């Protein structure tokens, strides 16, 4: 019996592990390291209506147990992605999460309408949380009414389930989660990066050309865990958890917090084999924990003892 299967709206996953959007390109690079079919799913880099070059360099800076990035949603545009990037993924047994971003509601809807109809795409991930572009994300992600309105519009034009990727850069993330759930979101992804900065002592200027960047990596894991713990108790849609996941133990921790699947981001940069390594370690870890199926763990940190946990 496969102890790792997870079933989410639009995503039948062999295991709960997927590379996170922005940390996996469009899969080609990692396909040189391992067979992508071992993954539960894969979230590809954000698509926008027009090609974007992104921000000037330097775009990344290391921090304690983490990194700042301000790539700026560089991508070849939705048309090119559909024509040149998605077809190679056909050769894998792999559900694709298509991350979409934009500067206006019309942008988002145009990209959603197009990419949701691509046969390789299983679900959409609505990126309203990229902190690195002046327009195109975060302004939709910090106000509940704006986020809900956008979710409703994207849902109306998308032919596939829509997950909304939430920003941690808000004072009340549960309010955001409830608003997009009410607007029709099929699931949530959380968390995106935390807005941060580093200053170079020699130049006395920010290290990153964009000045600010999104903080990711192990440093943000406790923030993600706390937010998922809180949100998962308030909503009834599933959560794809992410934020500093680097080991099989981290995956378990996220699921106990309330995530139904787990995305791995920055750790892919440290070790390109991290996803398959974690997937191969999970069965043994479950055995050690005396858990028959991984979905039993979902929300295990707050569900009452003895209550059979729901598989989402």
């Amino acid at each position, binding site marked *: 019996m496969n102890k790792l299967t997870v079933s989410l709206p639009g995503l039948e996953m062999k295991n709960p592990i997927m590379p996170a959007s922005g940390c996996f390109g469009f899969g080609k690079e990692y396909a040189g390291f391992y067979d992508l079919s071992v993954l539960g799913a894969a979230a590809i880099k954000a698509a926008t209506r027009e090609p974007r*070059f992104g921000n000037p360099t330097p*775009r990344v800076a290391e921090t304690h147990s983490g990194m700042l990035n301000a790539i700026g949603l560089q991508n070849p545009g939705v048309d090119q992605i559909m024509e040149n990037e998605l077809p190679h993924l056909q050769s894998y047994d792999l559900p694709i999460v298509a991350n979409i971003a934009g500067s206006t509601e019309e942008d988002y809807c145009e990209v959603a309408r197009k990419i949701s109809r691509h046969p390789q795409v299983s679900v959409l991930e609505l990126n309203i949380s990229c902190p690195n572009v002046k327009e195109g994300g975060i302004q939709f992600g910090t106000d509940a009414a704006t986020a809900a309105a956008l979710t409703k519009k994207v849902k109306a034009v998308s032919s596939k389930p829509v997950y909304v990727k939430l920003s941690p850069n808000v004072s009340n993330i549960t309010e955001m989660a409830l608003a997009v759930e009410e607007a029709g979101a099929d699931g949530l992804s959380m968390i995106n990066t935390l807005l941060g900065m580093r200053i170079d002592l020699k130049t006395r200027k920010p290290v990153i050309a964009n000045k600010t960047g999104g903080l990711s990596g192990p440093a943000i894991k406790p923030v993600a865990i706390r937010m998922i713990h809180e949100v998962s108790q308030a909503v009834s849609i599933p959560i794809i958890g992410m934020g500093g996941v680097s080991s099989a133990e981290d995956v378990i921790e996220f699921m106990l917090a309330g995530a139904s699947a787990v995305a791995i981001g920055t750790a892919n*940069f440290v070790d390109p084999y991290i996803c398959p390594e974690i997937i191969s370690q999970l069965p043994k870890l479950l055995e050690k924990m005396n858990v028959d199926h991984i979905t039993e763990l979902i929300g295990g940190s707050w569900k009452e003892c003895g209550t059979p946990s729901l598989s989402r």
Partner: protein
Amino acid sequence: MKKEFVQVISQKEIAHQIFELKVRGEVVADMTSPGQFVHLRVSDSFQPLLRRPISICDVDVKSKTLTMLYRKEGAGTVLLSHKREGETVDLLGPLGNGFPLDTLSAGQTALLVGGGIGVPPLYYLAKELKRRGMNIVSVLGFQSEQDAFYNEEFAELGEVFISTVDGSLGTKGFVTDVLKNEDINYDLLYSCGPTVMLKALEAQIPDANGFFSLEERMGCGIGACFACVCHVNGGSPSDYVKICSNGPVFPIGRVAL
């Protein structure tokens, strides 16, 4: 490209803050293209988190030995400098694309221009070109005499000119001053060094034919994270190359410096 824990054979400081690290591993057999690089994880913990790109300075495929030269500068390279004989290093590589070796024919002359920590990849290149019967002329630039390294190693392969900013060794000034003063005949230019140096070379030799190896801050090193992208000359504003996976070696003039 492979990931392997390679074994440290030796480590020594060969110039001010410049370390020579020799390692042995199966993966070294794949390192046949000078100009490629390896990505090292210097710590088992999350501190520092990311790998460090280090250029390939020399390879002995027979003994599976890789030589790397690096400057001890930040937290990562300080940790790397603590690695001792017998310890292992987590190495991913070889990554990127090296210098083409078949552009010149035997008997033609390659001019190698290196600046600072951009010098190391040119050594393996020089050896491979020499093996193919090409003549080597090297121009190496350093801050001062105490920062200079591998002068003798390059001298074994051909004529060497040195420049130092303070004039303590060779020509006072930059590699471009050497090129101004000396009448060097060559067929192809290969260069690696800081972007300011490559820019100065481009300005001084506008019709230069050859290859530049570029540096940029990297994340993943394999083309996935889009940290090290550069604009290309003559392309549309959204055209780009990734230094790590499309480069680090490019034909001169291709990348907007």
